C-alpha cells in the first residue's frame, strides 16, 4: 500500500497516471471507471473526498472528477483523482455507490447542481435545490447570474 504500488498498477492497466504533487491523476473512459475505482479501493483509497462536475461548453463535454482519499499514514498525503469526460448533451456515468458507499450524497449533489445522471444510484432526487426547481442545472455555464466587477455599482 504505497504510492509507487498504485502508480505501477495503474500503468499495468494501460493508463497514464500523472503525479502532480498533491494528487495522482488519471483519465479514464466511462466504461472502465468501475474497474479503476475497485483498484483504488484495493490499494487503500477506501473513501471519496469529493465528486464534482466541471462544465466545459467549449469542448462540449462535462468532466466528472472523483477525488479518493485514504486515512493511512503512507497514503494520506496524496489524493487519487479520476477524470471522466462525458458528452454534455447526454451526461451519464455509472454510479460508484457499491464501491464507495459514501458516494451516496456526493453523487446526488452533482446530479442536483450539474445534471450528471449516475446510473444505478437509487436516490437521485433534489438535495440542495428546492424540491420544485424547474430550471436548468444551476452550475452549468449557460445558466447566468449577475457577475461583479472590482467595484460594485450601487443604485
Amino acid at each position, binding site marked *: 500500500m504505497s504510492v509507487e504500488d498504485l502508480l505501477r498498477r495503474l500503468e499495468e492497466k494501460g493508463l497514464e497516471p500523472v503525479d*502532480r504533487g*498533491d*494528487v495522482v491523476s488519471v483519465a479514464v473512459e466511462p466504461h472502465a471507471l468501475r474497474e479503476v475505482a475497485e483498484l483504488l479501493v484495493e490499494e487503500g483509497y*477506501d*473513501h*471519496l*473526498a*469529493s465528486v*464534482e462536475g*466541471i*462544465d466545459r461548453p467549449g469542448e462540449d463535454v462535462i468532466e466528472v*472528477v472523483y*477525488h479518493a*482519499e485514504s*486515512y493511512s499514514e503512507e497514503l*494520506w*498525503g496524496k*489524493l487519487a*483523482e479520476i477524470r471522466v469526460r462525458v458528452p454534455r448533451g447526454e451526461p451519464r456515468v455509472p454510479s460508484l*455507490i*457499491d*464501491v*464507495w*458507499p*459514501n458516494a*451516496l*450524497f*456526493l453523487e446526488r*449533489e452533482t446530479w442536483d*447542481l450539474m445534471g450528471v445522471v449516475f446510473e444505478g444510484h*437509487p*436516490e437521485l432526487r*433534489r*438535495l*440542495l*435545490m*428546492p424540491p420544485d426547481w424547474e430550471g436548468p442545472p*444551476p*452550475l452549468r455555464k449557460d445558466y447566468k*447570474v*449577475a*457577475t*461583479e466587477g*472590482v467595484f460594485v455599482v450601487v443604485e
Partner: protein
Amino acid sequence: MSSSVMKARLLSREGDESVYEVFIGPQHPASGHMRFIVRLQGDVIVGVDPDIGWVHRTMEKLAETKEALKAIPLFERMTIIDSQNVTIGYVRALEKLLGVEPPPRARYLRTLLSEMNRIASHLYGMGLSGIFVNHSTMFMWCFGDREVWIQLAEELTGARLTHAYSIPGGVRRDLPQGFAEKARKAIRYMRRRLEEYRKIFFDNPQVRARYEGVGVLKSHEARRLGVVGPNLRASGVRYDARLLGDYGVYDELDFVVPTAEEGDAMARLLLRGEEIRQSMRIIEQVLERIPEGPILAEKYLRLIPPKLREPALKEGRIKFPGIFANLKIPEGEAVARAEMGHGEIFYHVVSDGSKKPYRVRVVTPSFRNVVLFRYLPPGHRFMDFPAIYGSLDYFPPESDR
C-alpha cells in the same frame, strides 16, 4: 463489513403500516436549520432522512462570478464561527496556483488564529450538545466563554466573527501590543473553566446516561464512510489534516492529536474538550517561538507604493492596492485540505488564466458527516436522536454551502 451491507443500511426502505414519519422541522429548538424525516416503529427509529438545503446559498456558483480574492469573505460565511480555518484552504489553493509562499511570521500568525478559532468552534459544539439534552447551564457557560476567544480574535483581526485574515501571500495584520499577555490570561481562565465543565457536564450522571453507549461508530465503518473531524478520531482513526504539513507550522510544534477508542457519543464530546487543551498548548508555543519578519510575501509587498510600504509594515496593517484585487490567476488546478473544528475541508480550484476562477469545488466537513444521520440512528430509541445529533456537531450552513 462489506459495501453491500453498508449500502443497505444507508438506503431508505419502504415500511409497513406500523411505520410512521415525524418531521423535525426547521422551526424547532433542537433541529438547527435543517429538517429530519424520522421513520419510527413505535419508539424505535427505523430510518432517518436528513433533508438539507435550507441554507443553500450557492457559493460555488457565486465564486465563479467574483474575482478570486473576493471569494474569501464569501467562503467565510459557510462556517462563520470558524472563519480562519474555512478560508485557509482556499488561500492555500490560490497560493499554489500563484506560486507564492507566505513568510515564516505569517505562517505562525495563521496557526495562532486557526487554533483560537478551533477553540471557539468546539465551545459552540459543546454548548449545542448541552442544550439538546436541555442542560441550559452548559449552553450559557459555553457561549459566555466563547466571548473570551472572540474578543481576543477581534483584537488581532478587527472583526468578531468574520476575520478574513489570511490572504494569498501572508496575513493582513500583525500582533498588536499586549496581545501575548491577554492570550495567556485567556488560557489560564480556560483551563479553570474546563475543570468546571467536567464537574457539571462531563461527570454529570444524567448527561452520561444519555450520551454513553449511544451512536457507536466503529473504526472500519468510519474509514469507509469518509467521516471527518472529532467524529472520526473518537472511533480510533488518527487522521488530522494538520498532520499533512501543508499549511501552518504544525510540523515544528509539539502537540498531540487525541483519539479515543469507544466511538460513542460521550467519547466524541470528551474528545472536543481534549482538543481544546491541545489547541491551548499550540497557542502558548506559537507565542513563544514566533520569529520577526514581514507578514506578507515580498512579491506582493512590492505592489504597495513605496511611500505606504514602510508605515504599513511598522503598524502591521496591510491595505490592499487596487491591483491586488485584480490578480490574474495562472492557468492550472490546485487542491488543498485544511482542518476545521468540525473536520477536514477540501478545496479544488480550476483556473483558466483569468481573474475569476473557472470552477471552485468545496466539500465541507459537515457535508461529509451527513451520511452519519442515515447510518447511526436506526435501531435506537427516539430520544437518543437529539443525543446523536448533539454529539456530531453538525453545522447546516456549512453543509449546504
